[in-house]
C-alpha cells in the first residue's frame, strides 16, 4: 500500500510523460510481483466494482469528522471529488499502513463487497485510522470504485517494456484479454522469453492527420486532382489483420479490440496482411447516431450484450496502409483507394455489415463542392475531407496533402443566468454555466456550456458570480443577468424536455461579448428560425 500510494502521488504530481514513465518503472522495479500484478490491474483501468457505496462512505466520514451534512456537501462541491473530500475531512493522522497491496485488496477489499454493513463499517473505520491522508485517498478511491489515474495504458506498457526489454507491442498484446492479477501473470507479462506468436505483428502505423483548411480552395489547384469525402465524427481506428490475428488501435495508440468485439470479429474476414484506416461510428438504420452514444462504449473494458445491441457500430473505411503484407503507404492515394474498394466489395458476408467504404463526394468545381458541403448538417457529418489523389500516406500532422474542411457552427448570443462549480481541474471555480435567451421579455434558459474560456476569463466570471449571486440552490447559483456570451453549437433539435423547446449539440462558449448589453442577446424566435432552416435543409 505504501509503495503504491507513493506511485499514485508521483503520477498525480507530474504531467510530464517521461516522469510518469520513470515513476512507473521505479514502482515495478521495487514492487513484489503479487503487488505489481494488482497495480497493473488498477493502472490499466480494470478497477474493481464499487465495494462500499459512496453514500455510506460519506455517512461514516460525516460521523467521524463531526461536520454537519451541509458542510460536507459544500466541501465536496469545492473539492470536486468525494474520495478526496473524505481524505481531507478525516481527523489528521500521520501513521502509515504498510500492508502489501495484494493483501489489502485480497483480504480487506474484495471480501468486503456484499458484506454486512456493520462489518464494512468497522473495516473501513479501522483502515482510515491506520492510514495517512495520501493512503486514505487511494483507499477511498479503490473502495468506492472510482480509482483512476492519469496514465494511459500506453505509458504503463512503455514502462514495462523499458524495464523488461520486451518490445512495447508485445507487452500490449500480453495485456489484452481477460487476466487475473496474480504474480504468475505479472511474470509472464515481463518475461523476455518470446512465445511463438509474439512477433511484432500487432504493430500499427503512425496515423496521417490533417489540418483545417485556412485559405481559399482555389489555391489547392484543380478539383480533379482531389478527392472529397464526408468527414465523420467518430473514433479514428487502424484495423490490422496479420497471421490470422486482429488488432484494433485507436489514435492514442490504445489497443481497443476488446471494446469493439463485433469489429474484431468482422476483421477476421479480411485478407491476410491487411491494414485499414477508418472511423468507428455508432450506426443504426443506415444513419449515424450521436457521438455521445459512442462515448458510452469508450470508457468500458467489458462490453455487455445489452450495450452491443443498444449502440451498434460500423467502420467507415477510407485508406489502405498494408495489402498482402506489403506496406502501401508510398503508393498514391488513388491506387490505395482502388485496392481498398476491391477488398471491401469482396469481403465475406460477415464483414460487409461492419466495413463500409467512405463515399467520395463528386463535384465538377470547387463552387459545386462548396454547395454540396452545405448538406453536412443534414447528413450529420462534420464537413468534408480533401485528399490529394497522388499523395502518399504520411506520418503525423501534415500540411499539403490532406485537409479538413469543417462547417462553421451555429452561433447565438446568450445571457449567463446560472453558474455551478466545476469538477476535477475546475473544482472550486464557477465554470459550468447555464445560458438564456429572450422570450417575450423574459430570459429562458436554453443551453449549458463550460468550455471555451481562457483561465483568466474563467477567473473573472468566477468573481462575477460570487459578487452577483441572486440565489443559491445547492451547488447552483442564479446570478444577475449582466454578462453576454457568444455560444456555438453543432446541431439543433426540437425537444419537449427543454423549457426552451430546443436542444442543442456540443454547445460551447465562443467568446465573451463584453461589448454587448443583455438587451442585445438573441431571442428564442431566432433559435427557432435556425431550427426551421436546419430542418428544411434536412428534407432536401
Amino acid at each position, binding site marked *: 500500500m505504501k509503495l503504491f500510494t507513493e506511485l499514485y502521488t508521483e503520477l*498525480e504530481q507530474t504531467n510530464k510523460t517521461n516522469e510518469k514513465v520513470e515513476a512507473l518503472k521505479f514502482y515495478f522495479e521495487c514492487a513484489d510481483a503479487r503487488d505489481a500484478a494488482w497495480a497493473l490491474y488498477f493502472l490499466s483501468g480494470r478497477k474493481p466494482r464499487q465495494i462500499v457505496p459512496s453514500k455510506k462512505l460519506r455517512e461514516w466520514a460525516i460521523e467521524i*469528522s463531526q461536520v454537519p451534512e451541509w*458542510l460536507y456537501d459544500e*466541501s465536496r462541491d469545492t*473539492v470536486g471529488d468525494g474520495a478526496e*473530500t473524505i481524505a*481531507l475531512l478525516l481527523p489528521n493522522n500521520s501513521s502509515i499502513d504498510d500492508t502489501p497491496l495484494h493483501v489489502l485488496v485480497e483480504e480487506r477489499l474484495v471480501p468486503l463487497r456484499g458484506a454486512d454493513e456493520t462489518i464494512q463499517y468497522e473495516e473501513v473505520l479501522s483502515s482510515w485510522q491506520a492510514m495517512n491522508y495520501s493512503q486514505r485517498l487511494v483507499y477511498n478511491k479503490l473502495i468506492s470504485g472510482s480509482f483512476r489515474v492519469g496514465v494511459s495504458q500506453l505509458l504503463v506498457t512503455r514502462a514495462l517494456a523499458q524495464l523488461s526489454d520486451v518490445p512495447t507491442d508485445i507487452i500490449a498484446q500480453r495485456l489484452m484479454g481477460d487476466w487475473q492479477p496474480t504474480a504468475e501473470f505479472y511474470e509472464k507479462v515481463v518475461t523476455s522469453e518470446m512465445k511463438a506468436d509474439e512477433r511484432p505483428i500487432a504493430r500499427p502505423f503512425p496515423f496521417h492527420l490533417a489540418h483545417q483548411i485556412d485559405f481559399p480552395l482555389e489555391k489547392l489547384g484543380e478539383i480533379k486532382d482531389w478527392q472529397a469525402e464526408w468527414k465523420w465524427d467518430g473514433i479514428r481506428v487502424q484495423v490490422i489483420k496479420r497471421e490470422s490475428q486482429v488488432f484494433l488501435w485507436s489514435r492514442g495508440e490504445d489497443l481497443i479490440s476488446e471494446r469493439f468485439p463485433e469489429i474484431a470479429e468482422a476483421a477476421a474476414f479480411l485478407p491476410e496482411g491487411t491494414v485499414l484506416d477508418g472511423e468507428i461510428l455508432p450506426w443504426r438504420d443506415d444513419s449515424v447516431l450521436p457521438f455521445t452514444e459512442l462515448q458510452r462504449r469508450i470508457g468500458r473494458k467489458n462490453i455487455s450484450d445489452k450495450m452491443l445491441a443498444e449502440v451498434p457500430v460500423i467502420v467507415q473505411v477510407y485508406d489502405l496502409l498494408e495489402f498482402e503484407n506489403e506496406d502501401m503507404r508510398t503508393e498514391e492515394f488513388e491506387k490505395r483507394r482502388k485496392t481498398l474498394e476491391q477488398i471491401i466489395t469482396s469481403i465475406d458476408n460477415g464483414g460487409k455489415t461492419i466495413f463500409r467504404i467512405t463515399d467520395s463526394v463528386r463535384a465538377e468545381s470547387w463552387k459545386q463542392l462548396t454547395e454540396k458541403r452545405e448538406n453536412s448538417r443534414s447528413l450529420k457529418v462534420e464537413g468534408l475531407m480533401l485528399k490529394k489523389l497522388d499523395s502518399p500516406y504520411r506520418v503525423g500532422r501534415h500540411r499539403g496533402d490532406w485537409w479538413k474542411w469543417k462547417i462553421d457552427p451555429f452561433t447565438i448570443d446568450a445571457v449567463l443566468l446560472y453558474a455551478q462549480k466545476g469538477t476535477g*481541474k475546475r*473544482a*472550486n471555480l464557477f465554470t459550468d454555466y447555464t445560458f438564456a435567451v429572450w422570450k417575450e421579455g423574459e430570459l429562458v434558459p436554453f443551453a449549458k456550456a463550460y468550455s471555451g474560456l481562457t483561465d483568466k476569463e474563467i477567473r473573472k466570471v468566477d468573481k462575477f458570480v460570487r459578487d452577483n449571486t441572486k440565489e443559491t440552490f445547492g451547488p447552483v447559483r442564479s446570478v444577475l443577468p449582466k454578462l453576454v456570451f457568444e455560444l456555438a453549437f453543432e446541431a439543433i433539435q426540437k425537444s419537449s424536455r427543454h423549457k426552451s423547446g430546443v436542444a442543442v449539440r456540443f454547445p460551447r462558449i465562443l467568446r465573451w461579448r463584453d461589448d454587448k448589453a443583455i438587451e442585445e442577446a438573441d431571442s428564442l424566435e431566432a433559435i427557432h428560425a435556425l431550427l426551421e432552416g436546419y430542418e428544411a435543409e434536412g428534407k432536401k
Partner: protein
Amino acid sequence: MSAKNSLITLTKSGLYCERGDFFLDPWLPVDKAIVTHAHADHTYRGNQKYLVPREGERLSRIRIGYDAVIETSAYGETVDINGVKISFHPAGHVLGSAQVRVEYKGEIWVVSGDYKLTPDATCAPFEHIHCHKFITEATFGLPIYRWTPTEIIFEQINDWWRRNQKKGKVSVIFAYSLGKAQRVMNGIDRHIGKIFTHGAVERLTQAYRESGVDLPETKYVGAVENKKEFAGSLIVAPPSAASSTWMRRFGTHSTGFASGWMIVRGARRRKAVDRGFVLSDHADWTELQTAIRETHAETVFVTHGFIDELVRWLNENGTNAKPLQTQFVGDEDALEDVLATEFFEKEIENQ
C-alpha cells in the same frame, strides 16, 4: 452593522468609524485610512493620510508611494482619535500585519484583516484580543482546509529542490511576492544552493531584510549575465511569472507553488505546476475557530472567503455571526499578480 449607532459601519468606500472619522482598509480614496497590512486588497493608493503599523512601514511605503502621508504606530501603542482608542496588534499574516483594536466608551471592536495562527519566523505571532465585535476573514473557511505542520512542508520543498538539483534542473517556486516569498526563503535549507529572485520579489525582500528579518543571500534574476549561474538553484517568483517568457532563461526546470489552495488536487492541476506545497499565510479551519473563540466576541462579522459557510457554522455552534460583503480578496493571487506584473514590466523597461 448598518445600525446608525454602530461604532463601525460598512460604507461604499469600506469599513468606517464615524465617531473617529476614519476608515479601515478602504477601497475607495478617503481622508484618513487605517491599514492592517500592505497586501494590495487592503492597501490602496490615493488616501489623504494613512496610519499603518510601524513594523510594516517599509512595505507600506513601497505599496503606497514615498510621497504619501503615512503615520505609524507600534504594536500595542494606543492612538486617540476623537476619543476613539486605536491600537495595532500582531495578526501573524505577513511582516507588519496587524489587527486593529478600536475602543469607544468600553465597546471594543477588532478588525483582524488577514491573519494566521501558525508560527512564522518572518513576522510577529498572532495576538488574541478580547472584544465585543470581531471582524474576521474566511479565506479558508471550510474544514477541508487544515494545514500540515510547516516543518513537513519545508522538508517537502527541500527534498524537491535537492531532487531537481540532482537531475540538473532549476527549481522555480511560485509564491506571492509579499510575505509568502520571504517565508519560503526564511524556512528553506539555504545550504542546498543559490537562490535567485524575480524583480517583484527582490524589492520586497530587501524591505524585509531592512526590517530585520533573517533571510538568505539572494540575487536578482535580472542581474544574472550568464545563464549557467542558474544551474541547480532555486528561483523565487510571483505566480504571474508562471507561463511568461521570463521562464525561458532557466532551461530545464521544475515548478512548484506555495499556497494553501494546493491542498486540493484540482487547484494544483489548474495551476499546472509540477508540485504544490501547502503553505498558507491565512488561518485554516481550525485556526479560524480558535481565533474566534478566544476573542469571546458577542458578534462575529465575516468579510471574505467562504463567508456563508463560516457564518452558518458559527451560528449553528452558538456564536452569533453575520456576513459582511467587503471587497477584500484574501487569496492574494489576483491583485498581487497585477502588482507583481507592474514591477515586472518595470524590470523589463530597466533592462
